[in-house]
């Protein structure tokens, strides 16, 4: 089942376009989340990066997935900076690498791309679940995705589990004290606020889901 479920380049390009639009639309919302517990710029940071991606996406489209996502990642890395630049930058670079210069991937490969990307975030940021970061969304999400695949759920259903669990994970950051990033030193005062990076992670996953048929 998973071998036959092919995600082609059109799909990934549409996803990237959707992410670009989502980040632009949600820029101020993400920034507001960061105001409460960080330095009030997460949405703006991502929008700087994805505006640059938007500018260049056309030039990359003819190349393979590894190339495209390397470019997306490098763009975030070089234009965003901060915490989210290297984290999402590494995510997309590794995400693309796992596609092994193909132009389309099957569902199992698709899972491996996320696995590689999320591991890159872990490696770069050295955060653990429960420290009130984007990993609180991504890690439980990935686990649920894996479970779903092991239980042979339909591809789209399996990815729905991913997004659902990521959402739940993001919400789980609300009552948490932050242990990483700028919010770390907030102590008790971080409690009651959704982590902005967790929120943007969910948005990105939703763009992947939305374009899945």
């Amino acid at each position: 089942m998973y071998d036959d479920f092919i995600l082609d380049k059109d799909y990934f390009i549409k996803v990237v376009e959707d992410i670009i639009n989502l980040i632009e639309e949600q820029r101020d919302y993400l920034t507001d989340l960061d105001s409460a517990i960080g330095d009030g710029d997460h949405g703006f940071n991502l929008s700087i990066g994805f505006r640059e991606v938007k500018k260049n996406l056309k030039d990359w489209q003819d190349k393979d997935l590894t190339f495209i996502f390397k470019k997306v990642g490098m763009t975030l890395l070089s234009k965003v900076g901060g915490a989210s630049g290297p984290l999402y930058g590494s995510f997309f670079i590794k995400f693309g690498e796992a596609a092994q210069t193909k132009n389309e991937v099957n569902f199992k490969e698709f899972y491996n791309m996320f696995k590689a990307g999320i591991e890159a975030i872990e490696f770069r940021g050295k955060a653990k679940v429960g420290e009130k970061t984007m990993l609180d969304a991504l890690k439980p999400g990935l686990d649920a995705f894996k479970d779903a695949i092991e239980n042979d759920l339909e591809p789209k259903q399996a990815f729905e589990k991913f997004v659902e669990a990521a959402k739940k994970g993001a919400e789980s950051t609300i009552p948490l004290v932050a242990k990483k990033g700028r919010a770390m030193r907030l102590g008790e005062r971080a409690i009651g606020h959704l982590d902005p990076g967790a929120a943007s992670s969910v948005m990105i996953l939703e763009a992947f889901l939305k374009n899945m048929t």
Partner: protein
Amino acid sequence: MRRLINDPYDVVEEMLEGFCKAHSKYVHLYENDGRVVVSNLAPVKGKVGIIIGGGSGHEPLFLGYVGENFADAAVIGNINTSPSPESCYNAVKAVDAGKGCLYLYGNYAGDVMNFDMGAEMAAEEGIRVETVRVTDDVCSSKNIEDRRGVAGDFFVFKVAGAKAAMGADLDEVKAAAEKANANTRSMGVALSSATHPATGKPIFEMEEGDMEIGMGIHGEPGVRRDKLQKADKVVEEIMSYIIPDLPFITGDEVAVLVNSLGSTPLMDLHICYRKVAMILEEKGIKIYRSFVGPYATTMDMIGMSITLMKLDDELKQLLDYPCSTPYFTIK
């Protein structure tokens, strides 16, 4: 919004263009990277390269301290956001004179990741890059290595810049910077938020008439929010955190920095300085040299921070060492 800007997505580039034009006697943009401000003297033969950097919005930090006998380059990030790994690496390419380089920056998750990646890239080219992260903000964590860097950056950078200018090797420069950092403690108070040029809104909410003790220079929340008190009371409270933390004790000699977070008049800073000096005098701590003004800001934030650095003979000499940059000169 009360900011004089054009398109908010262009603020950093336009600032850099204006800066390098206005201060063209001192600096220029690195030809390969528009986010690297390089001293006209760099690379300086026989000298360790001093590279400072971080997010924009703290001017004159970081770019204002690039010049003679201070920093060789500043790497410039977006507002409140670390520069990219590529730019951190390019700064090394721009200033390395064969004696290696020292990265100096405030200890923030984003900066650590990006500068570390820059150092990895340099290492692949065989250039040795060491790092000293400034951790002077007493209230940002119990563990010193988790603490953020705030206005103490200025002291640590100044010391490192002077040590390098005197011809020391990378290990010696790093050791001097580490000593400066270990001897430096800061804490601030904010009376307002800062305006993010993109949203045109404050980066956090703060009522007029309130203050937040311990606020970070990116607007990270502090230890408590309260009604604004008289200057002397505020200074007393801040000093009550700083002094026991190192601790600074009778007989110590210190450098003092009373720093504006952006929109605090020099009048108010000197009123605060007066109380700082009184408290130090009472405790038998001697002031060796003082700095009062906007050294590390948060754009238009109203507020003030106090930094003390405990001095020994070496640190005194390094602090006094002549230097010449767009925003700090010692004759």
